[in-house]
């Protein structure tokens, strides 16, 4: 088994066990680890907000993900900032749409 195959199998297993959301991209549902921690936007005194993101299998991420619409549990978002890594998983920071 090649390293990439092992990595892919491990990532599928991680998503299967740790995913807490289903993300719909181009009409297709995918497993995702969804987080939305409290965050302050640092303008003036600051404005309370949250920082939604999903961690997904890199193979499902479109080629130019910035601005791509997606839906999580019925809530619409767009991809604001993709953060690809070399682990076969990609973090997509989101904005409400």
């Amino acid at each position, binding site marked *: 088994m090649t390293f990439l195959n092992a990595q892919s199998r491990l990532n599928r297993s991680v998503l299967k066990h740790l995913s807490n959301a289903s993300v719909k991209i181009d009409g297709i549902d995918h497993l995702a680890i969804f987080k*939305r921690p409290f*965050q*302050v*936007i*640092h*303008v*003036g*005194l*600051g*404005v*309370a*907000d*949250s*920082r*939604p993101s999903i961690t997904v299998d890199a193979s499902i991420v479109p080629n130019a993900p910035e601005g791509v619409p997606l839906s999580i549990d019925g809530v619409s978002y767009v991809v*604001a900032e993709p953060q690809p890594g070399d682990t076969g998983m990609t973090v997509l920071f*989101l*904005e*409400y*749409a």
Partner: protein
Amino acid sequence: MATVFSVITDAFEAALLAAPAVVPAEAIFRARERAVPGAMNQAVNIQWALGDPEPGAIHGAPVDWKTTVVVECYACSTNESGERAVDPLLERVYERLAADTTLGGLVDDVGVPRLAAEFGAEGKKTGWVQMTYLVMHQTSNLKLSS
């Protein structure tokens, strides 16, 4: 008895609250110390920032002041940039305060504000504009009341 600085800040607040208020009353803050709540798509914060007396007043004579009052405009949006989101609020606040530059005769002039802006985004896009007013007014020499 309140100082003239507090009274002037009150007058700024009252002008922005006068019907129709520039934003709902619960979204107008006075010297707020914490982040603006995320549930508010628009908010205003008003605070006194500096009192600068003209030097050389003769003992007992009135003192001329240049007092800095800061008005901050906040706006969040999910469908437009922070810059565009805050623009209508900036316009409303500016026009409201320009409509009576003496604050009902309380001061000589609030002047035209200096503007600074910042923008940011997390889940929502946010715009912030700081309006710095240099207010000309007087006090008697021995008191800070108007």
